[in-house]
């Protein structure tokens, strides 16, 4: 049994390593994680220090990516902003995946009215398309990093709950689970030994795409003035600041956008590769 599982895992790993898109995504994602980890210590300037004499200066020797409307160093703000963006992404994904997996597993196993009530709640939350609910919550709660995380988690768990519930319903009917039940295995053992190992792959794929969505959502909220509070650097608010000076200083809006694009592209490539390698259907 364990030999067969090892072979399966090795085959998945080989498929993953042979997937060109996955490798590009892995490289981009790892690069961003490293930048977020060391960014604040390698930032050439203080990201909130203003230098009004040099405002809107183009990229040059002293400031590789130029200066913004208050003369702050764009590169330093992108590096520090990476930590903000990735932290929000990680926290939102961890909280959402944990709550969603628990809820999905519980309602999938319980069935009956518990399932009905939970799924109607999910339907209600899904009636708010895109980041509409997060915008509404942001509007009521006011800007702030903690409010942004809360707003994104309120909707974030729903996708995981639906995914896990569907998986649990399908797994319950599979022969190996039926066999375990017939052999007298308890509910806890079935969950631990049979359900959780089979749920990991789809949840992992969903979490990779979810991280990309959370990063874009945080940047969108900050762009709208509902996310991170200035002067803390956020890629979204940097673009909002830069779009007022597109003609004189396009670099202010362009570079943070490229940072978001590379991060999200990397995560989406990685998610696609993981989905193909782990043979997961229906996540995106």
């Amino acid at each position, binding site marked *: 049994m364990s030999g067969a599982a090892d072979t399966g895992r090795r085959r998945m790993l080989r498929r993953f390593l042979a997937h060109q*898109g996955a490798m590009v995504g892995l490289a981009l994602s790892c690069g961003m994680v490293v930048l977020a980890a060391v960014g604040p210590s390698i930032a050439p300037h203080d990201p909130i220090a203003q230098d009004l004499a040099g405002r809107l200066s183009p990229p040059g020797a002293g400031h590789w990516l130029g200066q913004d409307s208050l003369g702050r160093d764009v590169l330093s703000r992108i590096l520090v902003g990476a930590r903000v963006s990735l932290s929000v992404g990680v926290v939102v994904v961890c909280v959402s995946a944990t709550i969603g997996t628990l809820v999905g597993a519980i309602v999938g196993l319980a069935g009956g009215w518990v399932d009905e009530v939970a799924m*109607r709640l999910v339907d209600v*939350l899904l009636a708010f*398309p895109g*980041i509409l609910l997060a915008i*509404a919550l942001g509007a*009521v*709660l006011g800007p702030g990093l903690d409010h942004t995380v809360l707003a994104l988690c309120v909707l974030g768990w729903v996708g995981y709950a639906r995914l896990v519930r569907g998986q649990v319903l399908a797994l319950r009917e599979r022969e190996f689970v039926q066999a375990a039940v017939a052999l007298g295995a308890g509910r806890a053992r079935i969950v631990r030994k049979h359900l959780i190992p089979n749920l990991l792959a789809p949840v992992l794929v969903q979490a990779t795409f979810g991280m990309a969505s959370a990063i874009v959502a945080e940047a*969108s909220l900050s762009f709208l003035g509902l996310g991170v509070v200035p002067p803390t650097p956020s890629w979204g608010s940097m673009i909002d600041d830069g*779009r007022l000076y597109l003609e004189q200083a396009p670099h202010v809006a362009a570079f943070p956008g490229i940072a978001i694009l590379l991060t999200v592209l990397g995560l989406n490539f990685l998610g696609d590769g993981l989905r193909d390698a782990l043979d997961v259907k229906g996540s995106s």
Partner: protein
Amino acid sequence: MRSFILRRLATSVPVVLGVVTLVFALIHLVPGDPVDAMLGESALPAQREELRHALGLDRPILVQYAHFLGGLVRGDLGTSFRRATPVTALLAQRYPATAQLTLAAMAVATLVALPLGVLAALRARTWIDHGSSAAALFGVSVPNFWLGPMLILVFAIRLDWLPVSGRDGLANLVLPAITLGLGLAGILTRMTRSSLLETLGEDYIRTAKAKGLGPAVIVWKHAMRNALIPIVTLMALQFGALLAGSVITETIFSWPGVGKLLLEGIRTRDYPVVQGVVLSIALTYVAVNLLTDLLYAWVNPSIRFGGRS
């Protein structure tokens, strides 16, 4: 079909009620006082009381909820705090612009995605397919709040081909429609490719080939007809995402739609407007989903008679 419609309508009722309740709760049950948020800390106690009374916030919460529901039934979403205009009048004024932008974005997405997806499916696992997949992933990944300013920079400022903002003519629609539609184009390209690939493997396509039909007839007349069903369904389901995305796009291009109205409401803390816009977008989304399901059942009898999971 009638019983399917009734069943589907019945499942929509609790969702609509849930949406209405959630939007009501957003304003009334979150920590903090909406009156404080609207007036700021410097407001006098008398001003606070006056506004609290005007908004009905001095009544018990259940009475407020009943009043809110009663208003909704009569098509009354309250009055804008800042403009002293009924919210429904503001929505009626702004919705055509948002509908125009959303439909234009869908047209852009379709024009880009269908040819690209078909080409990728017909040349599967070649560099054309890989290129199309990479382009689709780029479309999905590029944030619209960055794409919009970059399009303005290139096509409005540098090349001076298109206007920066406003809604004076068709030229004004081009950049916002591309900004809003590119993400959907990416999703649709992937869907078109996978749906057409699946259809091209069906028996009736083999029969068509055996009959000696040309490739163009096989793809456009036989395969696409069936491949289009999931594509059209996806487009309808993405309509809501476009409506939500219009908040950002309308802000960037000063497009006078409901998205811009929502942000104006947020900035001026005009909660009746925020509540009305959020509710109207969510209910439009529920209605479009319902319509999609009914249309889907109409073209696909197995759903009508077998039920849909």
